[in-house]
Structure formats: structure tokens, C-alpha cells
């Protein structure tokens, strides 16, 4: 469960303050599939960084499962990212020259899960996203859609509280984008909370609820 309470992010560069987010409050319940929409420059990336514990808000509170993530130090944030958040990036961000299995195993390695279990779980999730026949392919041997599916498998490997997807279909052909959305909906029905950032209305409509953001503020 996510609770954002009066989140604000102000960047100061050479004495000039730029407001990226202001007075953003919302709640996302467990098991929801929410899309955050907004034009570029609206602050949706900043919001996504804060929700992903990659950045901390200047003021306001961000509570993830009751923990105030906004007040944590670097190592505690790393722990939150590892255990509670599954990232799916627009550019997939797989490690190059590593196999699909190795990529999915990486967050589990940081969590200290035994190697045998890591491998078993990686196989399970890769099969789930339909890559059971591409397990030992290197990431550069996979198509964009396939790479994104590896990223999804990596995102759910630690069974996180939320799956955070930043323009997940931005680099992918539309036919494959539909497949990704199908996987998201499937994961959602299994109980995963999904927060997806996008600027494409036809992708956003797959979500149960859409949060609009513009000029750093939520649009009612």
C-alpha cells in the first residue's frame, strides 16, 4: 500500500529553484493497477523516482507499507528498492553480455538468496513471461519485447510490494506492447500492485485507474 502525502520536490541549481512536484497526495491500495499519465515535463518521472525510492522528496511523506521511505538513508533505500520495488524501465536496462537467467538472478543475489533458489525462481518467472525457451540467451540476442519481458521477470523476482513501470512500452513495437500489457494484467490478477507511468492513452487504459499529473500537480 502506497500513501503519498503532500509530496514536493524542488531542485535548486545555481540559486534558481525549480519546482518539479508540489502538493502531491494520493493512495494506491494493494492489488491495484494504476497508470500515472502526464505530458513530458509534468513531473511524472520525478514522481516515479520518489515512488521507486531512487530519490527522496524535499518535503512531504511517502509511506510504503507503513514505512516512511522519504526519511531513509542510502543503504536503507537500497534495501527498500531490493525487497519492495520491482523496476521496469523504458530502456529495459538489462546487464549486457549476461544471459536472461543471470539478469533475473541479480536482485536476488543482492538480497542474499542462495544460488540454487535464485536459479529456480529465475526459471519460474522467465517461463511465466513466456521466455522458457530463451533462458540462456544473452540480453543482446533478444528482441526489445523479449528484453522487456526479462525485465518484468527480474522485477517480480523478489515478489515486491509494487511493480513500478516507467514507459514500459516506449521502445517496443505496438504488437509486442499489447503482449506486455497482457502480462501486466495477468500479474495484476495474481495480486501484484502495478504502478505504470506512460504518456500513451491507449496503454494507460489497460489500468484500472489513471492519475493525471501536470506541472507538478495532480489534475483532478
Amino acid at each position, binding site marked *: 500500500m502506497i500513501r503519498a502525502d503532500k509530496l514536493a520536490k524542488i531542485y535548486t541549481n545555481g540559486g534558481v529553484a525549480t519546482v518539479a512536484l508540489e502538493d502531491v497526495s494520493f493512495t494506491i491500495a494493494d492489488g491495484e493497477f494504476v497508470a500515472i499519465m502526464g505530458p513530458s515535463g509534468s513531473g511524472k518521472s520525478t514522481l516515479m*523516482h520518489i515512488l*521507486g525510492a*531512487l*530519490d527522496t522528496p524535499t518535503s512531504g511523506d511517502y509511506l510504503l507499507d507503513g514505512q516512511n521511505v522519504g526519511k531513509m538513508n*542510502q*543503504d536503507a533505500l*537500497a*534495501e527498500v*528498492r*531490493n*525487497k519492495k520495488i520491482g*523496476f521496469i*524501465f523504458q530502456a529495459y*536496462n538489462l*546487464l549486457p*553480455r549476461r544471459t536472461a537467467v543471470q539478469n533475473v538472478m*541479480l*536482485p536476488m*543475489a*543482492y*538480497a*542474499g538468496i542462495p*544460488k540454487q533458489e535464485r536459479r529456480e525462481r529465475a526459471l519460474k518467472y522467465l517461463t511465466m513471461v513466456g521466455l522458457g525457451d530463451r533462458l540462456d540467451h544473452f540480453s543482446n540476442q533478444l528482441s526489445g519485447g523479449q528484453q522487456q519481458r526479462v525485465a518484468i521477470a*527480474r522485477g517480480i523476482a*523478489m515478489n515486491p510490494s509494487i511493480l513500478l513501470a516507467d514507459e514500459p512500452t516506449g521502445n517496443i513495437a505496438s504488437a509486442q506492447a499489447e503482449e506486455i500489457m497482457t502480462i501486466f494484467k495477468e500479474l495484476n490478477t495474481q495480486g501484484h500492485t502495478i504502478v505504470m507511468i506512460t504518456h500513451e492513452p491507449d496503454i494507460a487504459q489497460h489500468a484500472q485507474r489513471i492519475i493525471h499529473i501536470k506541472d507538478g500537480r495532480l489534475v483532478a
Partner: protein
Amino acid sequence: MSLLELLGEAVGSLTLNKLRTALATLGIIIGTGSVIALISLGQASQKSVAAQIQALGSNLLTVMPGSQTSGGVRGAAGSSTSLTYADAQALLAQAGTGLSHVKSVSAEVNRRAQVVAGRNNTNTQIMGVTPAYADIRKVSVASGVFIAERDVHSMAKVAVLGPTVAADLFGEGVDPVGQSVKVANQSLKVIGVTVAKGGSGFQSPDDMLFVPITTAQKQLFGVDYVSTISIEASSADVMVEAQTEVGYLLLAEHKLTDPAQADFTIMSQQDILGAASQITGTLTALLSGIAAISLVVGGIGIMNIMLVTVTERTREIGLRKALGAKKRVVVWQFLIEAVILTFAGGVLGTLLGAAISYLVSTVASLPFTLSPQSIALALGVSGIIGLVFGWYPAQKAAALQPIEALRYE
């Protein structure tokens, strides 16, 4: 993530760019290689000098003319004329009785001169000796006989050749006994050739021509002093006692009362050995120090490569942090890479240095030595260089903010 897994990750990253990894390591290889080679060769030459001096006899005292100074070796010693054959005979007369620790005494006069045989000639050390010389200096003859007592008495015009001299004058494999050689316009009959002792460097016993001491003094050089008196002590344990006895007797002979006025120097093999190994030791330390500088340069090369690597892999580092890598894990990942680079360089450098040292010592006929301490030192230092020069790049990697790093193109 366990250390073993980090090690695997590091090896994986390093093998991605093999040429760069090899070039980065090269500096450390050369640095460690030269340190190992120099230390090893230094120890070899120290050993060789020690062996040469030991081969002359470990219970040998050498009396040289000239006054005593602290520290042992001096240029002036040997150039003075204060020792005489009479001194040697006085010592010999007391050997075993008044001089209870002295076994035998040999007086020598030596000078370099041209030796001619037929159309061949060579410049060599002419050594005027008594029969005792063969005993004390462990010289034996391969053919013929050595200088005998009656040759000394009769100032016989005879010569015993070292194998090198024999080969130079008469050719390899020819027995020159019975032939004659000319030194200082005096014809000498060859009565023997000594056994090759090997060894090179100063005063090789193979490159000498032995004549009776009286012949050398009166017939060849026209002098009445001796260059050195060699004394064999009864055992290596009584060297100090023997040195004291000989010293007091010679002082009395020279009618001196104060040991500070002594016009001669008594040196044991130990003294000579000490001086010689001190010189080679200092040289080795100096050269190794210079070689160690190249190790530091190699370390800077590693740091440079690691910094480039961190910049290149900014996105990767960002991703790893986003997926939950803590600061400590990132630091370790890059530190381990740096240490693997330098340690591998250290291992290869040690092999290279050992190979160089082995080749050089084979060519220069030195004993090949490679002490475990120097290997341990080289490997330890190369590992530490990895830690020191890898530390800053690793900190830089760990300090990267995941968002900045992920955005980096």
C-alpha cells in the same frame, strides 16, 4: 552477495575487455618483474662472491702491508712495501708453537706482467709463492708439479701455469710441461699446470703464473718486499685468536709497541666477505628501489583504467544500485577488480622476473636464487597497490546516485 560471487562478477567484467585488462596489468607485470629479477640477481651475485671468497679457504687470514683503518678495505693497502719475506719466515718459525692457532704461512709477491711463449703472449698475474701456497689456497696441479722448497731456495727459473694462461700461450689441450715461457726477459721452464678452479672476477686462480717467491723478487721484479702473507688458522673457530697472535708477532718484528701504529692490515675472509656483500647489498637495494618506482607508476595506470571503467559503466552501476546493491557491495566489486588486476600482474611479473633472473644467471654462470621472501613481498605489494589505487575509483562508483547513473548515456 558473497565475496566469492563478487570475485566471479569481477573476473567476468575483466574478461569482457581482454586487451585493456592485459595492458592495464602490463605496468604491474613490468614493475614486479624488474623488482624480482633485480633482487634475485643481487642475491645471486652476493652468493657468488661469497662462494668465491669461501673457495679461497674459510680459515684464511691475509696480511697486507699498509696501516690499519676501520672498515677494512682501503686503496692504499697492498701498495706499501712494509712486509718482507723475513716477516713471513718469522711467522712460519713460530707456527704451531708460539703461534698456537696458526697452521701454515705463505708469502706472496704479485704483479701483472707480459708472458711470452714463442709467438703467443698474454698479460697475466705473476704470483711469487712458496710451496705452502698450494695448501693454503687449495691449488693442485693437473700435470707436472707445483713449486717446491728447493725451487725457492735455489731461485729456480721455473713456472707453474694456471689453465687459462696455459691455453692462451700453448693452445687448448696442449700440455706445456717442459716448454719454456719468458717473463721480464727471463726464460722460465714450465714444470706444471694447475687444476681449473672456475670462477671469474677478481684474481681468478686460473689466470695466474706461479713462480718461486725468491725468483719473483730477485730475478723478475727486483724487489725485496712481499705483497701479501697468507696464513691458515688451525680452524675456522679460532680466527680471532690467530689474528691477534699474528698481529702481536708482526708488531714485535716491526719493533712497534702500539697496535695503532701497525704498518700492516690483517683481514679474515669474513672481513672481505662482509665488505663485498655490503657493496652488492647496497647496489641491489638501490636498483630494487628504482624498479619499485615503476610499480607505483603501474599502480597509477591501474587507477586510470579503473576510473575509465567506472565512467563507462555508470549505467550498470546505477542499475545495480536500483536493484538493491548497497554502497559497500559496489565498493567491493570495483576494489576486487582492481586487486585482481594488480595481483595477476604480480603473479605474472614474478614469473617474468624469475625467468629473466634464471636466464641471466645461466648466461653469467651465477647461482640462480629466488627467495620465498621476495616472492611474498612482490605479491603482497602488488595486492596492496590494487587496494590503494582501486580505492578512489571504487568510492567514486559507490557514490553515484542511481537516478543520475540510470539517466547517463
